[in-house]
């Protein structure tokens, strides 16, 4: 993902809240500190399919915004 970002592609990582610190730290370590994180509620594992859909609904507007911002 970080390599794609370095090549200028529109990229992001879907990240649950419990992993935000790791996600931001690793983006910095791997040389892409501005890598967007699409934040969703933790956890992603062990939830019902309805709860997975609810997380997708939170993620999709962030992804649309990411495309809008970078395609201007």
């Amino acid at each position, binding site marked *: 993902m970080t390599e794609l970002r370095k090549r200028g592609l529109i990229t992001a990582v879907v990240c649950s809240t*419990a*992993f935000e*610190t*790791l996600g931001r*730290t*690793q983006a910095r*370590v791997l040389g892409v500190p501005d890598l967007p994180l699409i934040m969703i509620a933790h956890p992603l594992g062990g939830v019902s399919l309805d709860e997975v859909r609810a997380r997708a609904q939170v993620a999709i507007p962030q992804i649309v915004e990411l495309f809008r911002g970078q395609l201007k």
Partner: protein
Amino acid sequence: MSEMARLLKTPGVSMEGIADWEAANELIMASGWGDGLPIVPPALERVESMLAYCDRPWDQPVAAIAPRNGAATPLRIAANAVMAGCLPEYFPVLLLAIEAMCEEPFNLYGIQTTTHPCAPLVIMNGPVAKELDINSGHNAFGPGRRSNASLGRAVRLSLLNIGGAIPQVGDMATLGHPGKYSYWVAENEAANPWEPLHVERGFSAATTTVTVVGADAPHNINDHESITAVGILKMIAGAMANTGSNNVYYHGEPLVVLGPEHAAAIAQEGYSKADVKRYIYENARMPLDRFSDENITRRMRLKFPERFASAGPDALVPLCARAEDVMIIVMGGAGKHSAHIPTFGATRSVTRALKRYDGRLATSVREFRHG
């Protein structure tokens, strides 16, 4: 200016006022560094003494430790070895273990950051394990021997302080396990009725090696009743077949640690090590209906479609992809116990030989000594 004094001018390698025990430990604890236990202050002369057994440039990284990709220079590793309580003669094998766990197949990045509890387990083989008095007998995973305890701790301190595996920052383990403090042993070669691990992997018996394994905690297998090879192996295979093991989900190389008495009883009937691996591969299996419905539909059927897409409740689930992937070592003292160590799964163990900087095999740590 001495070489050491010059290197200590490099940013990030020195701490002022650390010779004093109280001050050093206050600083470590207040900063959230280390493993939570008091450390030996890494004062200049102690670090320099540690490096008396380093035959390569002190400031050139031997590896980058994930997830921070911290530069693992001998100097930094030596400071961590001092803090852990190592003797200087331990240093060459510590450096080798750090190098081995930074090789790509090991997937240290995954092992450091995962929610799984795994830690690098270091297994030594060969004459230097004896030279350094690494415990391979009674209570080898337990306390009591400076070499095992401090070498394992030096690995962990290096993973924390150089690699940045800080709990909840660079190490997301849900639970962790006690081996994350220290996890360093040697195989009990004298009690091994078969070829030891390093010989199985193509090294000569006289070569010293370290093998690193991305390992869960040891799960004990008590069998005082079986008097046949098949009896003991059946009990071991039964204990290994567990839902929830990463080896079920990601395969990899489940590790079996045979106590000497179990190993001898199995070998006495003519079983080779390959036979033991084959038995465990074929029998450490559990029926699909041991898994929850959600795991069957959301994981097993999707992840292994060729085997379980339409499999019935009696279909057997294995622990690894091939019999050769079962790892076997012999370790411990008297008694009818063995252990199973599940692994992270998404990792391959790495075995490396102890060599001098000139590339020649080392037969003793004395060959690294200088000054």
